[in-house]
Each structure stands twice: as structure tokens, then as C-alpha cells.
């Protein structure tokens, strides 16, 4: 059966598969990517650099970080990824300049970007070896960059979030970020195991962050995708007083979790926070993402991202810009 119906060598077969993949890739991008404001206009490249941290220590998959969260737990982290879109620079006069994200396979598809801090080593064995600490894109050459603010949205745009995961291109093809039971994607994924600081023998407790849209339902019987989500849970991040092309943006899980207790999980809820509105463990976490949650603070303010200024002349303080 195999001989008569398929005579090509495996190599040729793989090559054809790859070619087809490439052929499928392009039209998807053409359809999904944000249109460039003006293709005739000269554009200049910009890039924004991120750095994963846990309080004062650089993130990695091997370290057990001490003093995390309200109970100052010891924490091993086995995943640390997120999606970002809708990047905007604001100049000194308040003018907003949208950044067109590059197509940079596999991290960016022109509209959605993934930041990936895990490298598949240590505790992160379910991850991917490659990391991505940068957003890259372009702005009009004419934009005069004296910037006061960088904005972006943590999450996946609505149409893409509910697009068919079996055909979406990377970075939306990474199954570790699929959130199919909610017909969408995890906007951010941080998997952790926590132990009390004063016990070397206590069994680690799982505490995971799966951020995504919840309460999603189709509005009509014939609809195949959600048309509304009661809780979109996309966090708009605004970083002021930044020289975005020079400063590094710290992504600090220690700050994010400062108000959460990683040694406690409310009974009959997901381990940690999987974004349920009914899960009290999500309250402090959502607060630190700047998101409203029934169990969270009334005036949430994001703490995950902050600007780490880099003074090119003295190495201390912050240069005006």
C-alpha cells in the first residue's frame, strides 16, 4: 500500500512539506498583519529590550529564587512567556507613533510578538531552547524621537486570540500557549513551584499563572468562535520616563507576585491563577497587572514592567532624554 501510493523519498517529501508551509505562510501574513501606514514613507528600525527578573536577580530556569511573594517563598520557575501587541511610542509633545512590529519568525508575525525568557534548561524542560528578549519594529523616519512613553498591550488581539490555532502562524502556533478550552491563548504563562523558606523538606506547591480572556461565549447559535468575552484581561502597559531605544524594560516576577501568597491556593480553584473571575488567588495578581478582578484591588496598577535606565556616560542615575 505504501509503495504504490507514495514513491517519493522522505527527503523530497519533507521538502515539499516545507515548501507548502512557506507558501501558506505568506498569505496568512498578508491577511493578518497590520497595514503599514504608508509604504512609500521611509521607515527606521526600532527595538525594545526586555530583561526577565525575580526581584533583584536575573531570571533563569535553574535558580531557586528566595523571598518571592507575600510569604517569602522559595520558588523554582519552569515557564515564563508572554504575548505582546499594539506597541506605541509617545513623543515629548504627546504625539502617538504606532510601532509596526516586524515579521521575525518565529517570534513576531507583524502583529503579535512573543517574549520568551525560558530556554528549556533546568526546570523549563517543556520549553523551547531559543529565547526572545526583544520587540523589533519600525517607525516612520520622520518621527522625531524625543520619547516620553512606551505603551503596549500584554495579550493577543481579539480576532487572533480566537483564530483557529491549528492554522495560525508562529508565534501563535506554540501549543504551550494554547488555551483551547477557552477558545483562545494564554496571554502570559508563568509556571512555578513554591516551598516555604523555613522548610527544606516540604513538598513543593504548584502555582501557575495562565492569563487569558475568560467568560467567552458565542453570541449566536451559528457562530463558531466567541464573539464576546466578559473579561478580556488584556493589560495595557504604559512606561513613562523612558528612553525606549536605550533603556531596558525589566519584567520582574518578584514585583508581579509581591502581593500573592504562593504557599496558599484557595480550595477548589486552579493551582495559582488561571484567570477565573471566581478564583480569589487571581485578585492580587491581576492587581499587579493593572487588571480589575472581583478579588483584586479597586485601583489596580501594573508592577510587572518597569524601566531600568541605562546611563551611557556614568553608569548611574538617569540621563535626560
Amino acid at each position: 500500500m505504501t509503495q504504490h501510493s507514495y514513491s517519493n523519498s522522505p527527503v523530497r517529501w519533507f521538502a515539499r512539506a516545507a515548501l507548502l508551509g512557506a507558501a501558506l505562510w505568506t498569505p496568512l501574513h498578508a491577511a493578518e498583519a497590520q497595514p503599514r501606514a504608508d509604504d512609500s514613507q521611509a521607515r527606521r528600525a526600532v527595538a525594545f529590550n526586555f530583561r526577565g527578573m525575580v526581584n533583584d536577580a536575573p531570571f533563569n530556569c535553574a535558580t531557586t529564587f528566595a523571598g518571592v511573594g507575600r510569604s517569602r517563598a522559595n520558588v523554582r520557575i519552569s515557564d515564563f512567556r508572554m504575548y505582546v501587541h499594539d506597541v506605541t511610542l509617545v513623543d515629548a509633545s504627546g504625539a502617538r507613533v504606532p510601532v509596526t512590529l516586524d515579521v521575525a519568525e518565529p517570534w513576531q508575525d507583524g502583529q503579535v510578538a512573543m517574549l520568551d525568557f525560558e530556554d528549556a534548561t533546568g526546570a523549563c524542560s517543556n520549553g523551547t531552547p531559543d529565547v526572545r528578549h526583544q520587540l523589533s519594529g519600525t517607525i516612520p523616519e520622520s518621527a522625531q524621537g524625543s520619547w516620553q512613553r512606551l505603551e503596549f498591550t500584554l495579550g493577543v488581539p481579539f480576532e487572533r486570540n480566537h483564530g483557529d490555532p491549528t492554522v495560525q502562524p508562529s508565534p501563535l502556533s506554540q501549543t504551550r500557549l494554547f488555551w483551547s478550552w477557552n477558545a483562545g491563548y494564554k496571554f502570559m504563562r508563568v509556571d512555578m513551584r513554591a516551598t516555604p523558606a523555613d522548610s527544606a523538606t516540604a513538598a513543593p506547591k504548584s502555582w501557575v499563572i495562565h492569563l487569558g480572556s475568560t467568560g467567552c461565549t458565542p453570541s449566536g447559535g451559528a457562530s463558531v468562535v466567541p464573539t464576546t468575552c466578559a473579561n478580556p484581561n488584556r493589560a495595557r502597559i504604559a512606561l513613562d520616563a523612558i528612553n525606549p531605544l536605550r533603556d531596558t524594560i525589566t519584567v520582574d516576577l518578584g514585583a508581579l507576585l509581591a502581593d500573592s501568597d504562593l504557599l496558599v491556593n484557595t480550595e477548589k480553584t486552579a493551582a495559582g491563577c488561571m484567570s477565573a473571575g471566581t478564583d480569589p488567588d487571581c485578585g492580587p495578581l491581576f492587581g499587579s497587572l493593572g487588571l480589575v478582578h472581583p478579588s483584586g484591588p479597586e485601583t489596580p496598577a501594573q508592577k510587572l514592567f518597569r524601566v531600568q535606565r541605562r546611563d551611557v556616560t556614568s553608569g548611574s542615575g538617569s540621563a535626560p532624554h
Partner: protein
Amino acid sequence: MHTPARWFSVVAVCVLACGVLAFAPHNEWTWSLPAGFPEPKVPAGNPMSAAKVELGRHLFYDARMSVTGRFSCASCHKQELAFSDGLARSVGATGELHPRSSMSLANIAYSPALTWANPTQRDLERQATVPMFGEDPIELGLSGRERELFAIVSADPQYRALFARAFPGESGVVNLSTITRAIGAFQRSLISGNSPYDRYKSGARNAISASAVRGEALFFDEKTECFHCHGGFTFTGTVDHVGKGFPEVEFHNTGLYNVDGKGGYPAPNTGVHEVSEDPDDMGRFKAPTLRNIAVTAPYMHDGSIATLDEVLDHYAAGGRTVKSGPNAGVGAENPYKSEFLKGFTLTAREKSDLIAFLRSLTDSTFLTDTRYANPWPATHAARGNAPPRGIR
């Protein structure tokens, strides 16, 4: 591509196995539908073909489709149990206990809403990504392992042939889209409509017992209201097909629980509420098909009722009372309960008549049809008999 001799052998096998499909080329499909069954709706992006169904069958039964190499779709969807698994709650590849019970896949092609209580799950292709990649709970455990999966499938010479035939316009490419489309096509082919009751309705007056005939009358009576949620040729209110105009999707609270006196169901099985977070959706679940119901015990979304006899007790009481423990409560007083759960009384004979009717819905040909059976040779790695390995 095909020599005459080869083609003849394919046709010959198909004559034995495929009935009316015998003369359909592998890139075509002819539905072989029981009397009274309309044509299923098929997504535009995944037309049926005999080759695609055959590929999907291989994938459905392939134990390499899991993190352990020993677990497949069929581990929780066994043909002899109408593609359910006989457990109160299913167990995934890594041993994790699922919150819910495996559902029968019989006539799933007609279901516009999939799984127990998730209004966002509308087509089989996308739904397949839940058991494949879901992590809460882990079912097949493939999250983050898609490249390994594609490599295993691509390396199997049999799959090379199957993919080439199933997806000739796409050069037989192995990716998540072709894999899920093939599995979806196979699932749509799982048509069950040859029960004794079907033969009875087609004129074979002796196909079911006199008791079952009396049970039929009770089933379709306003006294029991069974048919309101389990009506139509699929015996479920959630149904769609060609010519229907619009799909019907129904979820009902049947008063199984009332843990807080306010209608609460035990987490995480709060029904549609788990997805929608709408308080009014508390405890709303899809009415499963009653076809083959006698072989799909235990019952309810969490397998919490062992027998059909006890299921009838629950409905007769207009809801279940759990006397003690964390789930204690009077389900009959659940404020979200369906209006059709009004309770009724049955004599012992009426009860056995109803059960005789439900048993007459078992389609033994469906449970043994070789078209739906495991296609892999007993010694093949796809059987999952090899030492533990697979996608790690």
C-alpha cells in the same frame, strides 16, 4: 499512480469493509446514513473523503499521539462502549483524573456543541486541540511537544502514504491542521442508527419487546418529559445538520447538586458557568445522546450515577438529594433547574419498561463495525505495547 491490480485490491477490501462506499474513490465520500438521518454538516475547510477518514482512524488509535506513547484518543473513547470509556471520570495519559466522564462519540457529526458544557467548542478540528494540548487536566499531554509529534508521524512510512492520499492538494503535509482535520473526519464518520429501536421504527414490529414499546410511550410522554431534552434522531436537543437552517445548542441544569442552597455545583464542574462565568449558567450541561446509553455507564458529567435505574430515580425525584459530605444538598430545589425536571412517579413495571426502551437504543453493529476499529497491527508501536517511550 495506481496499478490496476493495486486498485482492484483496494476496491475489493472496500467492498468488504465499506458497504456503499465501495465505488467511491479515496478522495470522495458518500454518506451511508440510516433511514431518517439527514446529512451531517461538514466544515467547508474539511470536506469528507474516504482517505481522510482512514488517516483519521489511524491517528485516533495511535498511542504515539501522547506524552507516554501509550495513550490515544481511543483510550478514553472505546468502540465497544460507543466510544466512551466506562469510567466515572476519565484518566489521562499521565494518570491525572479528569473532572468529567468521557462522552460517547456516536453521531458526533450532528453535534454543534462539543464536550459536556463548553459553548465555545463548535467544531471537531479545533476541539481536538483540547485533549491534545490541554493541561488542566492533562489528557494526551502534548502541550509544547508538537514538533516531536510531527516528527514521529512524519517518520512512519504508513503515514506518508495515508497523508499523501488524504491531503493530495497539500502534498500530504504533516501539521496540526492536517492531523486535526483527519481526526475530525474520522469522528464525523461515526454514525450510529441501526439499533433494534431503529429497526422497529422502520417497520420490524418485533425488533423490540412489548416492554420497550410501552417504555417508548412513556419516554415521549409529558409525564416524564424525557424527550424534551433527548428528542430527535440523535436523542439530544443539541443538533445540527444540512437543511436545518440553524443549529440548536442546549444546556440544562438537571438538579444533580445544590451544594450551597443557592444552586451551586461542586467546582470545577459548574457546567457552562465554568466557561462563561455567568451565574445563570450554573450547572448547565449538554444532554448527551441516549443512543447506546446502556453501554455508556456510569452516567452524568461526573459519572456520579452508576445505573440507568438510579438515573430514573434522579429524574423521578425532580433532582438528586445528596445527604452528606461536601456535596450535600437538595438538587430538586436548585433554582437554576430546568423546568422539565418536575418529577414524576413510576410503577416498577413502568420503570422497567423505560429501561427496556433505553436498552433498545443500543446499536450493536456500531460497537463492532470494522470501519471504526483499531487499524494498527497488534505488534505496531502505534498500539502502545512497546516499552514506555514516545514524545518526551
